[in-house]
C-alpha cells in the first residue's frame, strides 16, 4: 500500500518546481499552465526516464519566466527599486540641466580614467614580464659576483665547465642547467634568401626550460649536432607557405642545419622575445675552434647559464650551496679573485635587473612605481573636480535635500542617492575612457614600446573594471554625499544654507592639492628633458655623420680588405673604411692583464679593449690629443696601442705617449692618446679603453662616406661591393648617429610619457578651476552688480574674482618645490653624468602655471565683470 503510494508520488512533477511556478506565475494563468506542464511531464515520462522528465519539467518552468506570465507582485517591484530608479532619473535630469558642469565632470573623469586604464595596462604588462614561460617561478639565470678593488661587480658570463659542474654536483636541486650564448645576430640562408636573424646556441634542455610552444617538430630537436629550431615568423619568411620541417638551412654561411622544429614566436614581454632560432650548443663549440681550450677552464668567463630548479628546491638554500663552486674549482693561479655565484630568478629579471655591490637593488620597478603613482594622482585630480563642483553647487540642491528629508528620507538614503549619481557619472566616463583608450592604445604602445591590448574578453578585466567604477564613484562621490546629506531640514527648506567655512576651506585644500601635483609633474617633465638635452650635448668624441657600420659574421670582407678599400676610395665613395672587434656602441671586451710603469701591484686593473685595423681612427674621426694614430706602413705598430684620456688618467701616467705597457707577456708601446669616445651609456663616465692594432680582426666593418657623394649613392656602391665579395651576407648597415640616438630611447620614452601625463593633469585641474570660477562668478552676480554701480572698474572686478585662485596656485607652486627637489634629485642620482636643477625651472614652471590659471579663470571673471548691472540686479 505504502509502496504503491510511493510509486504514485514518484511519478509526479517535482514539487519544488511546482511551488516555484506558483510563486511567480500570474494567478489567472496558473490553472492552464500547470495542466499543460503536467501533460508535458507525462508525455515525457512515456518516452524517457523519470529523471529526464523531471529535468524537463524544471526546464519548462524556467521558460515561463517571461514578462507576460510573471505576476505584478510587490515582491519584484521593491520600494528600494523604484527609489533607485528615481535617483537615477533625478541624477540624469541634473546632468542634462547643467550641461557645462556635466561636461567638466565627465570630460575630466574620462581623461583621468583613460590615463589610469592605460597605466594599469602598462603596469600589468610589466608585471607579467617573462610569465609566458610556464615555469617562470622556477627558472633563474646564474649571476657572478666578482670582488675587485673592494667593490663587487655582477655579471652574467660564466666559465664553460660551470653548467656541467652544477648539473653533476647538485642534481637534486636542478631540473635543467643550460649553457647558452648571448642572443646575437647571425646569418640564416635558405637558397637565395638570406637574413640577419637574432638567435643563440643552447644546450638540449633549453627549449624545455623556456617551455617553447612547438608548432611543428618537438622540443628535443637540438639533440642532433646539425639541427636547428626556428620561430614561426622566421619559418614564414624563409619558406612562405611550405612546410619548413626537415628542410636544410645555412647558419652564418658555414653550417648546414636541418630544421627539427618550429616554435611559436616568444611574445614581446619576455627576455627571449628576439629569439628567432636556437642552434645546438655543441655546434657552437665545434664550429668555434678556439672554444676547445676553455672547455675545462674555470678561470674564464664565457657564456650565460640558465637553470630550472626542481619544484621542491628553495632558491635561498640552493644559492647558499652553490655560491663557491667557481672559487672551489678554479685552478689557475692567475685568477685569485673572489667569484661567488647566485641565482637571479626569472620573475625578477625585468623589474629588478640591477645589481649594486653584489645586491639585487631594483631597476625597472622604479618606473612601475613612478607611472603607477602618476596614474593614481591623475585619477585623483579628476575625482577632486567632481568633489569640488558637487559641494560648491550643493546650494542649488538644498531644497531638494530638505524636501526629501521632510518626506521621510533617511540620511543613508540620501547618501545612496548622491553616490548613485556619482556612479552614474563614473559609468559614463568609464565608457568614454574605454573609447579614448582603444583610440590611443596604438600610439601608447609605440611610445612605451609595448604590445598591449585591451583584454575585452577577459572576465577578470571586466570585474576589475566594475571594481574600478565603484571605487572611483565612491572616491568622487562620498564626500559630496556625506556633505549634502548633512543639511538640517528646516534650514535647507528655508534656503539658509550657505557653504560653510569648512566646506570652502576643504575645497581650497583640494585645489591646492591638484595644482601641487600638476606643478610637480610639469617640473619633473622639464627636468627629464633637461637631462636628456644635457646628455645629448655631451661631446661624443667621434664623428657620427655619414658613418655606417656592418656587423660581419664571415671573413668575406676581411679577406679582400685591401681590394675593397682601394675600390671604394677610387670611386670616391668613402673617406676611409676599417674593421674592429666591437661595434661603435658597445664595450664588448674587458681585459685585466695589463701592467704599466708605476702600477700598484695590488690594484686589479680592468680595461675595455678594442682590436681594430689601423684605419679605425680615421674612419670614425676620433680626436687625437697627443702622439699619433696607427699606420699600416709602420710594421712595429702591430705592437702599438692608442689609449683614451680616461685610460691615461686611470693609469696615472704623466706622459703616456712612448710608454711601454706589458700585456700577455709582450711589450706594447703607447702611440697616442685620444679624447674619450662615448661607447656605452652616455650617462656614465667613459671606461678606460685601449685600442690595439690586430690584423686578423673582422667583426665589424665601418665606412665613412666621402662628403662629395650622396648617401644613397654611397650605400649603393658599398652594396654592390658586398654583392661581389660577400654574396652570402645580407647587406644590413646601421648609421652611427641612429645607433647613438638609441641610447636615449629609454629617457625619451619617459620624457614623452610624463609630458603627456602632466599636460593631462594640468588640463584636468584647469577644467575643475573653470567650473569653480564660473560658479563663483555666478554666485557673486549681485555683488558684482552693486560694485559696478558703486564705481568699480572692470580691472578691479577681474582682480577681485581672480585673486583667490591665484593665491591658491601660488601656494601650490611653493609646496611643490621640496617634493620636486626630492624626487628629481633621486631620479638624477641614477645617472653618473647628470644635469643640475637650477632655480629658474621653478620660476618658469610656476609662472606657467599661474598664466594658465589666469587664462582659465579670466574668461569667467571678465564675463562677470562686463555684465550689465541693470540685468544682474533686476532678477527677483
Amino acid at each position, binding site marked *: 500500500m505504502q509502496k504503491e503510494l510511493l510509486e504514485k508520488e514518484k511519478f509526479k512533477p517535482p514539487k519544488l518546481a511546482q511551488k516555484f511556478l506558483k510563486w511567480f506565475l500570474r494567478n489567472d494563468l496558473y490553472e*492552464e*499552465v*500547470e*495542466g*499543460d506542464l*503536467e501533460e*508535458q511531464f507525462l508525455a515525457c515520462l512515456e518516452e524517457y526516464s523519470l529523471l529526464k522528465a523531471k529535468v524537463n519539467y524544471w526546464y519548462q518552468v524556467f*521558460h515561463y519566466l*517571461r514578462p507576460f506570465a510573471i505576476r505584478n507582485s510587490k515582491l519584484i517591484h521593491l520600494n528600494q527599486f523604484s527609489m533607485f530608479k528615481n535617483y537615477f532619473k533625478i541624477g540624469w535630469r541634473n546632468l542634462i540641466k547643467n550641461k557645462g558642469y556635466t561636461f567638466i565632470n565627465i570630460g575630466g573623469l574620462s581623461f583621468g580614467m583613460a590615463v589610469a586604464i592605460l597605466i594599469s595596462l602598462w603596469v600589468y604588462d610589466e608585471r607579467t614580464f617573462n610569465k609566458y614561460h610556464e615555469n617562470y617561478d622556477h627558472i633563474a639565470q646564474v649571476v657572478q659576483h666578482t670582488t675587485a678593488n673592494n667593490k663587487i661587480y655582477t655579471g652574467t658570463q660564466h666559465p664553460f665547465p660551470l653548467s656541467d659542474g652544477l648539473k653533476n654536483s647538485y642534481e637534486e636541486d636542478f631540473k635543467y642547467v643550460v649553457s647558452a650564448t648571448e642572443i646575437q645576430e647571425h646569418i640564416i640562408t635558405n637558397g637565395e634568401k638570406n637574413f640577419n636573424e637574432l638567435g643563440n646556441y643552447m644546450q638540449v634542455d633549453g627549449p624545455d626550460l623556456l617551455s617553447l610552444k612547438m608548432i611543428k617538430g618537438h622540443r628535443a630537436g637540438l639533440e642532433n649536432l646539425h639541427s636547428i629550431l626556428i620561430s614561426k615568423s622566421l619559418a614564414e619568411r624563409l619558406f612562405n607557405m611550405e612546410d619548413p620541417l626537415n628542410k636544410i638551412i645555412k647558419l652564418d654561411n658555414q653550417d648546414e642545419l636541418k630544421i627539427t622544429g618550429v616554435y611559436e614566436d616568444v611574445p614581446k614581454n619576455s627576455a627571449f622575445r628576439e629569439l628567432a632560432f636556437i642552434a645546438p650548443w655543441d655546434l657552437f663549440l665545434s664550429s668555434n675552434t678556439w672554444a676547445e681550450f676553455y672547455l675545462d677552464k674555470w678561470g674564464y668567463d664565457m657564456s650565460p647559464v640558465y637553470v630550472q630548479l626542481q619544484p621542491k628546491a628553495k632558491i635561498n638554500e640552493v644559492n647558499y650551496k652553490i655560491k663557491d663552486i667557481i672559487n672551489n674549482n678554479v685552478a689557475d693561479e692567475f685568477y685569485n679573485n673572489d667569484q661567488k655565484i647566485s641565482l637571479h630568478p626569472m620573475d625578477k629579471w625585468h623589474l629588478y635587473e640591477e645589481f649594486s655591490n653584489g645586491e639585487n637593488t631594483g631597476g625597472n620597478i622604479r618606473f612601475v612605481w613612478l607611472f603607477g603613482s602618476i596614474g593614481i594622482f591623475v585619477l585623483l585630480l579628476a575625482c577632486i573636480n567632481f568633489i569640488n563642483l558637487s559641494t560648491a553647487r550643493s546650494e542649488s540642491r538644498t531644497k531638494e535635500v530638505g524636501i526629501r528629508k521632510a518626506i521621510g528620507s533617511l540620511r543613508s538614503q540620501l547618501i545612496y542617492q548622491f553616490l548613485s549619481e556619482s556612479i552614474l557619472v563614473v559609468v559614463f566616463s568609464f565608457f568614454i575612457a574605454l573609447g579614448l583608450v582603444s583610440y590611443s592604445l596604438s600610439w601608447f604602445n609605440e611610445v612605451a614600446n609595448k604590445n598591449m591590448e585591451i583584454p575585452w574578453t577577459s572576465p577578470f578585466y571586466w570585474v576589475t573594471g566594475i571594481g574600478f567604477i565603484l571605487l572611483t564613484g565612491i572616491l568622487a562621490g562620498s564626500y559630496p554625499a556625506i556633505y549634502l546629506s548633512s543639511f538640517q531640514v528646516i534650514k535647507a527648506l528655508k534656503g539658509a544654507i550657505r557653504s560653510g567655512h569648512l566646506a570652502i576651506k576643504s575645497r581650497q585644500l583640494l585645489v591646492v592639492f591638484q595644482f601641487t601635483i600638476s606643478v610637480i609633474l610639469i617640473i619633473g617633465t622639464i627636468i627629464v628633458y633637461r637631462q636628456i638635452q644635457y646628455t645629448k650635448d655631451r661631446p661624443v668624441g667621434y664623428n657620427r655623420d655619414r658613418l655606417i657600420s656592418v656587423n660581419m659574421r664571415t671573413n668575406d670582407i676581411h679577406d679582400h680588405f685591401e681590394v675593397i678599400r682601394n675600390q671604394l676610395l677610387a670611386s670616391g665613395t668613402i673617406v676611409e673604411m676599417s674593421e674592429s672587434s666591437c661595434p661603435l656602441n658597445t664595450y664588448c671586451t674587458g681585459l685585466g692583464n695589463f701592467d704599466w710603469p708605476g702600477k700598484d701591484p695590488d690594484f686589479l686593473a680592468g680595461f675595455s679593449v678594442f682590436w681594430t685595423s689601423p684605419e679605425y681612427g680615421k674612419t670614425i674621426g676620433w680626436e687625437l690629443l697627443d702622439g699619433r694614430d696607427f699606420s699600416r706602413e709602420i710594421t712595429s705598430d702591430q705592437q702599438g696601442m692608442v689609449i683614451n684620456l680616461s685610460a691615461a688618467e686611470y693609469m696615472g701616467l704623466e706622459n703616456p705617449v712612448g710608454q711601454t705597457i706589458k700585456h700577455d707577456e709582450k711589450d706594447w708601446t703607447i702611440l697616442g692618446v685620444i679624447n674619450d669616445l662615448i661607447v656605452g651609456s652616455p650617462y656614465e663616465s667613459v671606461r678606460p679603453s685601449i685600442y690595439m692594432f690586430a690584423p686578423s680582426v673582422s667583426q665589424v666593418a665601418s665606412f665613412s662616406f666621402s662628403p662629395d657623394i650622396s648617401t644613397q649613392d654611397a650605400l649603393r656602391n658599398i652594396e654592390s661591393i658586398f654583392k661581389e665579395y660577400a654574396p652570402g651576407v645580407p647587406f644590413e648597415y646601421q648609421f652611427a648617429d641612429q645607433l647613438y640616438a638609441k641610447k636615449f630611447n629609454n629617457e625619451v620614452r619617459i620624457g614623452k610619457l610624463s609630458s603627456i601625463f602632466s599636460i593631462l593633469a594640468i588640463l584636468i585641474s584647469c577644467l575643475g578651476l573653470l567650473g569653480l570660477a564660473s560658479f563663483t562668478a555666478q554666485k557673486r552676480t549681485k555683488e558684482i552688480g552693486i560694485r559696478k554701480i558703486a564705481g568699480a572698474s572692470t580691472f578691479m572686478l577681474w582682480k577681485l574674482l581672480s585673486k583667490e585662485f591665484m593665491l591658491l596656485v601660488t601656494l601650490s607652486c611653493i609646496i611643490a618645490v621640496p617634493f620636486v627637489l626630492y624626487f628629481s634629485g633621486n631620479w638624477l642620482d641614477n645617472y653618473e653624468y647628470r644635469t643640475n636643477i637650477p632655480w629658474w625651472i621653478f620660476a618658469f614652471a610656476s609662472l606657467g602655471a599661474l598664466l594658465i590659471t589666469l587664462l582659465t579663470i579670466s574668461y569667467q571673471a571678465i564675463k562677470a565683470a562686463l555684465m550689465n548691472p541693470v540685468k544682474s540686479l533686476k532678477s527677483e
Partner: protein
Amino acid sequence: MKETKLGEFEEVILLLVGILGEDDAYSFKITQEFKDQTGRSVSIGAVHSTLSRLEEKGFLTSEMGKATAERGGRRKRIYSITAYGRRTLEISRDFKMSLWRQFPQFGFEFDGLNFSR
C-alpha cells in the same frame, strides 16, 4: 510586409492553431505539434507567450475549455483563430507568393501552374 506585424514564429503558431482546431489548440498540444511539424523543440512557455501576444494583437481569441479528468480536472485554454487572423495569414501568404513570382527561376513554374489563382 505591410501592416500585418507577423513574425515567422508567430505565423507558424497561428497556422498550427488553425490546423489543430477546436479541441486541441492549447499550449501543450501546439508545442507538440510544432515539434512534430518543424523538428525544432520549443518550450511551452515560449509558445504560451506567443499565443498571448497573438491574442493581444487580435489574431486569436481564447476561452477556458471544460474540465476533464485527464489532467487532474484542470481546464485548458483553447485558442481559436479570428477572422482578422485568418485575413492576416492570407495577406502574408499572398505577399510571399508575389515575391516568389518575381524570383527569376521559380517564377516560371508558378506562372505555368497558375499557382496564384
